C-alpha cells in the first residue's frame, strides 16, 4: 500500500524538524510531502534538507488550496492512501495507524481523527466547546453519521476520496466543508479517537465574538455546499 503523508506548512520552520522526525520514526515506509504554502521563512529548505518531498506554491493559497495540492500529487503519483498531517506539530505520528485501520477494513473512504472521542482528553474554552457542539449536531444530522471533531485536520483518505478531493476541495473552511462535499459525493466517513498535542507555538486568535462570527460563516458555507453540484 502506497501511503502519502501530506503536511501543509505556512511559515513552519520552527516546528517542521520535530514533525518530520516524528513522521520518519513512526511511519518509515510512508512518503512525506510538505506543501509549502508560500512561506516567507525557510520552511521549504528545512523540509528539503530532511529528505522529504516538497512542493512550493508560488503564493499563499490558504490551507484548503495547500491540502488540495497534496491530493493532486497523490492522485498523479498513484498513492492508495493520503494522510493529512498539520505542520505545526499538533498531530502525533503514533496516531496515524489508527486512521489507516478503517480504510484497510474498507468501512470508510475518509477517516477523521477526533480529539473529543477520548473523554476529558482535550479541554477547550467554554464558548469554543459550545461552538464545536453546535457544529457536531448540525453536521451529524447532515452527514447522517456522528462527527464530533469536524475541524480536525488530521485525516486519512483512500484512493476514491483522493481522486474526489483532487477534483474538488473547498477553500474557505476546508475541514468542515470537505466533509459536506464528500458526503454529497457519497463517500463514507468515520471517526476514530486520537490524542493530539496542545498547540505549542503561537496563540489562538479565537475570541467569543469572533467565534460566533466564525460559526455563522461556517454554517452558511455548509448550507451553500449542500446546494453545490459535486463532480
Amino acid at each position, binding site marked *: 500500500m502506497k501511503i502519502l503523508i501530506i503536511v501543509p506548512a505556512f511559515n513552519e520552520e520552527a516546528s517542521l524538524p520535530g514533525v518530520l522526525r516524528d513522521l520518519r520514526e513512526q511511519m518509515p515506509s510512508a512518503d512525506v510531502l510538505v506543501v509549502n504554502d508560500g512561506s516567507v521563512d525557510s520552511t521549504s529548505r528545512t523540509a528539503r534538507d530532511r529528505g522529504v*518531498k516538497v512542493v512550493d506554491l508560488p503564493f499563499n*493559497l490558504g490551507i484548503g488550496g495547500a491540502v488540495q*495540492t497534496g491530493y493532486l*500529487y497523490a492522485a498523479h503519483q498513484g498513492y492508495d492512501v493520503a494522510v493529512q498531517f498539520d505542520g505545526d506539530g499538533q498531530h502525533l505520528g503514533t496516531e496515524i495507524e489508527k486512521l489507516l485501520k478503517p480504510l484497510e477494513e474498507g468501512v470508510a473512504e475518509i477517516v477523521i481523527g477526533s480529539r473529543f472521542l477520548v473523554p476529558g482528553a482535550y479541554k477547550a474554552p467554554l464558548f469554543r466547546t459550545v461552538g464545536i457542539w453546535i457544529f457536531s449536531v448540525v453536521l451529524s444530522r447532515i452527514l447522517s453519521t456522528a462527527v464530533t471533531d469536524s475541524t480536525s485536520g488530521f485525516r486519512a483518505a483512500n484512493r476514491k476520496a483522493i481522486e474526489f478531493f483532487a477534483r474538488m476541495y473547498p477553500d474557505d473552511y476546508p475541514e468542515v466543508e470537505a466533509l459536506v462535499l464528500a458526503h454529497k459525493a457519497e463517500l463514507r466517513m468515520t471517526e476514530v479517537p486520537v490524542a493530539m498535542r496542545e498547540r505549542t507555538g503561537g496563540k489562538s486568535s479565537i475570541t467569543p465574538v469572533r467565534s460566533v462570527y466564525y460559526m455563522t460563516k461556517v454554517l452558511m458555507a455548509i448550507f451553500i455546499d449542500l446546494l453545490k453540484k459535486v463532480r
Partner: protein
Amino acid sequence: MDLLKILAIIGSGALLVVVIELIRRGRLKERYSLLWLLAGAVLLVLSSSRGILEYVSRMVGIFYPPSFLFLIAFLFLLLITLHFSVVLSSLSERSKKLAQELALVREELRNIKKTGLDNGK
C-alpha cells in the same frame, strides 16, 4: 427638448462612445463589453424617444418616465456587477489551479534534473 432629455442623451451617448473607444484600443475585451454596450444602447433609445419611454413606463405602471430610466440603469449596473462576481470567481479558481500545477510541475522538473545528473556520473 427639455434639459433632462438632453442630459440623458449625452450621458448614454458618452457611455457608448467610451466603451467603443476602450474596445478599439484593446483596453476592454469584447466579452466584458457586451453588457455595457447593451446598457448604453437601451438607455440611448429610451432617452432620445419620449414616446417609447412613456409607452414602456406606462406599461409597467410607472407614471414619471425619467424614473423608469433610472430603474433600467440600476438594473443594468446590478447585472454587470453580478457578472463581474462570476468572472472574478472563475479567475480565482483558475489562478489557484495554475499555482498548484506550477508547484507540482516544478517539483517534477527538479526530480528529473536530479536523476539526470545522477545518471551522468
